[in-house]
C-alpha cells in the first residue's frame, strides 16, 4: 500500500481502496491491521502535497471522510489535523507550481481535443510523453473517433466488408460491436481498434490506393480517406488496382462506338496524368 501511495498515478486508487477498507471493515479488523491502516492513511495525507493532480486531492478528501466516519476519537483527530496540513501545503504547492511552469500544463479535456486532430500513429506515440498525456491519449471517445475514421462507422463498415472477401475476423468483430451498441454496453474502442487493425494489418492499412465511392474513381488514400476527405473508400491492393484499370478499359471498349471520347474510360485517364502516381 505504501509503495503505491508514492506513485502519482496510483495514489488516487490507493486512497480509494483505503477509504473503502476504512468504511467497511475497520471495526472488524484486528488491532494490528487497524494501526497499519491508520498509518497508511496518515502517509497518504502526508504525501498529498507531492501529488499535483486534482484527482489526488479529491481522493484524499474521500479518504478523509471515511477516516472521519470510521476511526475512533483519538486517531480521528490525528487524521484530521494531518489532512488539514496536507491540504494547505497542497494548495500552496499548486500555486507555486503553476507560476514556475507558466501554466504549461493543459487540462485533460483540452489534451483530448488536441489529440482528436492527430492520426493513429501520433496518438500512439504521444502516449509515451508523460503519464497525464497517456491518460488523455487513452480516452475512449478518442479511440471511437479513430476507429470510425479508419475503419468507417457502422454503415460504412458493412459496405466495406461486402466488397472484401474472406474477412471472417472483421465480421465477428463487427457483430460484437453491433451487439455492444444495441445493448448500450460501453465499448472499449481502443481494444476494438487494436483487434481490427491487427486483423487488417498486412493488406489494408498499408495500402495507399483505394476506390472512393464518392468520387467514383481510384484515388490515393491518406489515412484511409480519399485525398478530398471522403471516407467511403475501399482499399485496393496493387493487384486490384490493375484489375480495376483493365476492367474499366474493357468495359468502355464494349460501349457505343459513336462516343469516342468516353472510349478512353477512367482507366486511360489515369495513364494520361502520370503525375498522380507520383503522389
Amino acid at each position, binding site marked *: 500500500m505504501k509503495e503505491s501511495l508514492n506513485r502519482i498515478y496510483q495514489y488516487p486508487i490507493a486512497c480509494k481502496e483505503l477509504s473503502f477498507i476504512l468504511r467497511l471493515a475497520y471495526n472488524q479488523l484486528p488491532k494490528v491491521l487497524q494501526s497499519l491502516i491508520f498509518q497508511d492513511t496518515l502517509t497518504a495525507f502526508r504525501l498529498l502535497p507531492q501529488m499535483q493532480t486534482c484527482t489526488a486531492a479529491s481522493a484524499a478528501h474521500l479518504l478523509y471522510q471515511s477516516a472521519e466516519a470510521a476511526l475512533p476519537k483519538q486517531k480521528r483527530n490525528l487524521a484530521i489535523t494531518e489532512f488539514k496540513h496536507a491540504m494547505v501545503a497542497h494548495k500552496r504547492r499548486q500555486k507555486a507550481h503553476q507560476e514556475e511552469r507558466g*501554466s504549461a500544463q493543459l487540462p485533460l479535456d483540452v489534451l483530448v481535443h488536441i489529440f482528436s486532430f492527430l*492520426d493513429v500513429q501520433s496518438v500512439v506515440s504521444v502516449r509515451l510523453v508523460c503519464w497525464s498525456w497517456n491518460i488523455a491519449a487513452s480516452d475512449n471517445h478518442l479511440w471511437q473517433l479513430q476507429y470510425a475514421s479508419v475503419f468507417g462507422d457502422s454503415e460504412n463498415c458493412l459496405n466495406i466488408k461486402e466488397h472484401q472477401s474472406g474477412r471472417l475476423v472483421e465480421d465477428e468483430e463487427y457483430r460484437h460491436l453491433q451487439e455492444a451498441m444495441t445493448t448500450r454496453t460501453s465499448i472499449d474502442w481502443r481494444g476494438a481498434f487494436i483487434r481490427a487493425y491487427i486483423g487488417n494489418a498486412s493488406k489494408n492499412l498499408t495500402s495507399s490506393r483505394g476506390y472512393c465511392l464518392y468520387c467514383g474513381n481510384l484515388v490515393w488514400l491518406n489515412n484511409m480517406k480519399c485525398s478530398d476527405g471522403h471516407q467511403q473508400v475501399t482499399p485496393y491492393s496493387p493487384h486490384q488496382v490493375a484489375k480495376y484499370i483493365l476492367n474499366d478499359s474493357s468495359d468502355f471498349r464494349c460501349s457505343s462506338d459513336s462516343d469516342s471520347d468516353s472510349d478512353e474510360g477512367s482507366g486511360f485517364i489515369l495513364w494520361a496524368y502520370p503525375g498522380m502516381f507520383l503522389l
Partner: protein
Amino acid sequence: MKFCTVKQYFDDENNNNVTNGIATTVIPLPNKHLKIKANNKEMEQYEQELLRNVMPQELTKLILAANYLNFKEALDFFCRTVANAIQNKSVDYVRKFFGLESDFEPGEEEKLCKEFAWSFEGVDED
C-alpha cells in the same frame, strides 16, 4: 454569445488563467472572424501571421485562454495548430516542444512502447 465568459473574466479580479498579453491576442479574434466571415483564405492568412512567431509556451497559454473564455473557434484553431506541430513526430521532440518531463518508471515506458509496436513506422526525423 461567444463572450459569455468574458464578462465573467472582467469581473473576476483574481484571475490567473489569462494574462494581459494573451487577452489582447485572443479578444480581437471574433471581430476579425465577423469581418472576414465569407472569405476563408484571408482568415487563414491572418491566423498564419498570428502564429508564425509564437513559441509553444505561448501557444499553451493561448489554448488555456480560449478554453477559459469558452471561445470554440479559437480553441479549435490553436489545438489544430498544436496537433499539426506534433503530428508524426518522435516522443522526445514532443517532450522538448512542451518542456515536459517523463514521469514514467523505467520499465513502464518500454511496456507501453511494445503495446503498439506495429505503429512505430515512418516517424519524422526530429
